[in-house]
């Protein structure tokens, strides 16, 4: 990791120097052991650019604002393989001006989920060392250790693999995490439950929602200039979940609005302060689309057509859900 970070920093410097980019979009150290923060770099602060196993944040969405307007210059964005899917999807939707972006694909061997470390009872984390698949976590209460793959982010456990789908150059080799599982396992598990159990499960999860909008604001697909939930004239604006219905409503509509556009980047689940497995909603829609309308990966190409804006005359009838999936 150290080495790649070094490579990237050097390359970023070159890009700025050569004028190939006016700014670099990357991560800077946050002060803790696990909080690299999105930042824009120029020659005078590029030294602060870091890349490590906690750079999970998907930077593609920042490019919407950054490439707006005539005056904005060229940005070199550091994107991990899975981030480039979001980037492509945003290109599909004309949300990013491609000419103003120089994509530097950065290799990734799986990002770490600090919440999973904390869930193991690792408290007061002061530093983390990574060595051949194991982490040593230095805490206020002594050193702890665990295998890396056990604390990978959800998205990395079921990594799309296959490297960058959009980039102008790659720095550091294209790695994919060693643990690649069936990403629909969680959905299938829920589908196998009875409706009552499914209902109880989601009530339990969604009832924790504090409507902070972190999932929405972090989501690259939720790029609306004004969200329907913030628009008093939309008829569904709300700032808080006054009751169960609004918890359901917000998440159903959000999942539906990003249906066919969600690249499954996993930011929603990463940022949720309450640890609600929101990816299970998006993946359900992805799974349904794959099963009913053929495999589709949003953002795989900059011109892919979402399954919700296309059709075939032979499409399954809606009552297909009465027969398939979901225990009764």
């Amino acid at each position: 990791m150290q080495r790649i970070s070094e490579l990237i920093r050097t390359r970023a410097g070159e890009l700025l120097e050569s004028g190939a980019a006016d700014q670099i979009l990357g991560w800077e150290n946050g002060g803790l052991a696990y909080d690299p923060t999105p930042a824009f770099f120029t020659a005078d602060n590029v030294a602060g650019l870091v890349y490590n196993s906690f750079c999970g944040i998907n930077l593609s969405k920042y490019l919407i604002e950054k490439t707006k307007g005539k005056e904005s210059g060229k940005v070199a964005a550091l994107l991990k393989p899975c981030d480039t899917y979001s980037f492509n999807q945003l290109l599909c939707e004309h949300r990013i001006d491609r000419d103003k972006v120089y994509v530097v694909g950065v290799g990734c061997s799986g990002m770490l989920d600090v919440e999973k470390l904390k869930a193991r009872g690792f408290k007061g984390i002061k530093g983390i060392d990574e060595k051949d698949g194991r982490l040593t976590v230095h805490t206020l209460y002594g050193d702890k250790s665990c295998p890396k793959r056990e604390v990978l982010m959800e998205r990395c456990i079921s990594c799309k693999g296959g490297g960058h789908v959009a980039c102008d150059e790659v720095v550091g080799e294209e790695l994919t995490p060693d643990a690649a599982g069936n990403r629909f396992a969680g959905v299938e598990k829920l589908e196998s439950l009875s409706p009552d159990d499914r209902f109880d499960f989601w009530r339990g999860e969604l009832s924790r929602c504090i409507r902070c909008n972190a999932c929405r604001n972090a989501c690259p697909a939720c790029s609306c200039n004004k969200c329907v939930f913030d628009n008093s004239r939309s008829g569904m604006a709300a700032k808080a979940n006054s009751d169960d219905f609004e918890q359901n409503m917000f998440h159903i509509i959000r999942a539906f609005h990003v249906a066919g556009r969600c690249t499954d980047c996993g930011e929603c689940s990463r940022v949720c302060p309450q640890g609600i497995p929101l990816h299970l909603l998006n993946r359900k829609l992805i799974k349904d689309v794959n099963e009913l309308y053929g495999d589709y990966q949003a953002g795989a190409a900059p011109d892919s057509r979402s399954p919700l804006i296309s059709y075939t005359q032979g499409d399954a009838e809606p009552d297909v859900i009465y027969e398939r999936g979901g225990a009764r």
Partner: protein
Amino acid sequence: MQKVGVFVCWCGSNIAATVDVAAVAEAVRSEPGVVYSIDYQYMCSEGGQSAIKNAIQEHGLTGVVVCSCSPRMHENTFRKAAAAAGLNPYMVEIANIREQCSWIHKDMEEATQKAIILARTAIAKLHLNSPLVAGESEVVKRALVIGGGIAGIQTAQDIADCGFEVDIVERSPTIGGKMAQLDKTFPTLDCAACILTPKMVDAAAHEHIGLYTYSEVEEVSGFVGNFAVKIRQKARSVRGELCSGCGVCSGKCPSKKTPSEFDQGLSNRSAIYIPFAQAIPNVPVIDRDACIKFKTGKCGLCAKVCSAGAIDYEQQDEIVERRYGAIVVATGFKPIALERYGEYGYAHSPDVVTSLEFERLCNAAGPTKGKLLRPSDHKKPKTIVFIQCVGSRSDDGCGKTYCSKICCMYTAKHAMLVKEKYPDTEVYVFYIDVRTPGKNFDEFQRRAVEQYDVHYIKGMVGKVAEQNGHLRVQASDLLADRQIVIDADMVVLATAIEPDPTARSLGTMLTASMDQNDFFTEAHPKLRPVESPTAGVFLSGVCQGPKDIPETVAQAGAAAAKAVALLCKSKLLGNPCVAGSDSMLCNGCSYCESVCPYGAIDYVYKDIIEHGKKELRRVARVNDAVCQGCGACTVTCPSGAMDLKGFTTVQIMAEVDAICR
């Protein structure tokens, strides 16, 4: 807040008998904005309409709710009334308390409650209505007639005679259709060809009529007043402009074994052929599946003998693109296939024929030169059995549930013709009922019975089987209540008719709705019988339902009149209920564009000022003249920027709320 007037219609007893109209009028008084509320016997009447006009003026209403029949019935009536009183016609909402309430509910209490809710819902929506103004669009002064049978020809002539351009598209090599195959016509027994062929000639000669024979409609886009149609002109392999129609080519053609479509397969034709003597255009066509030249590359005899050098083996299909203001469908019918009716032995014995085949057998230009000889051994039949309702009015699932309407009459005609020519023939007719409404129809059928003593037997035929050179017909005589057996020489099946098989795909192209039998549905069964619900599409002849020739011609004229009424208009008022995008909310993501069936949406770069900051954004723009108001874009739009006038998101939600209140 609108000032709303509510008008509850009794519709005589149609509504008032099951809905307490007074109670409805009373209940809505407490609804927000309602300043006036009455019940009235017939809102659609002159009196009812002036009640609306007066209330608008006296009470300064800004919105009107009429609780009455379906909006599909009188929405326009009431909009016009409102407009006459200076109110925007789109400030009128209808609560459908007849079709969707009084007519389906028995219990008065229940029906009244529902009527109140429906009224409340209309009021809730109305509060969010805004005045709409319809845009205008040009009318292309040309009509397309699909199908060149008697219906199509008549419609085309009537339109053309009004001075408008008409094109006829006919799938087969000639116009004329089924009528050209008929021998005589009931009830006058005059010769079909004698009355049809002059019409065909006139049509071809008419300065305003263009013929596209051996052609098919490939694609239809656009909308009323401005349809864009792609027509495929199939390659005849003969160049019409050169051909003199001498017929030498078909005479010399060595491939003569193809069953003649025109003669229902009772005779053969050559590979290069003119369907029949009076065909229009009188230009042969090469049947490439039968032609030796096309199959083997050898031969080419026709080209050698053609002095005009009209033969062109290289000819390709051509796609012609034309614009039309109106489209008339006249695709006609065909007899149903009989494979499901094995009991009549049609497949086994050549002497069991359909009525249309029988027409050819009687016809002077037919395979037997008009002598009635049975196909098997060309002997003159002594006993002929006619079986009616073969596949019509059937509940056995094999045939059609409807009555084909023409069979009773043509069967009587056939029986009479036989008796006329060969009085010594025994003629039996098996029927379920004899249906002969129509001018001089019943007289005609009775003549068959009384003057020509044709044996009419009420009963169904159970079996027709060949037996020592005869056709043994086993049947039941319901009146005499006994089984009978007749040894016939010929059996004629009055085969049910069904819409032409191409109708279904055409219906889809035109987005014109059809019933379960693939007959085109009319905009209103009584009041708009020759119009399809799809604006600018009209119906002529059997494509809308079984008809005889006089009815067909009458309807063809009516369809023409409707089409002309449309073509006469200099401009069309569009539908103001079109989509519109709020550029403040639009992301420019292009999703709406990709679901728009009319290509009505494009994108422009626009300076948007939000929070006092100016920003250049890509935003959607809707072309009002092209948008048809389906609303596909509104749901696709994630930001809710796209909305549909007249059916806005908040309006529909207000309706939901009102219903659930």
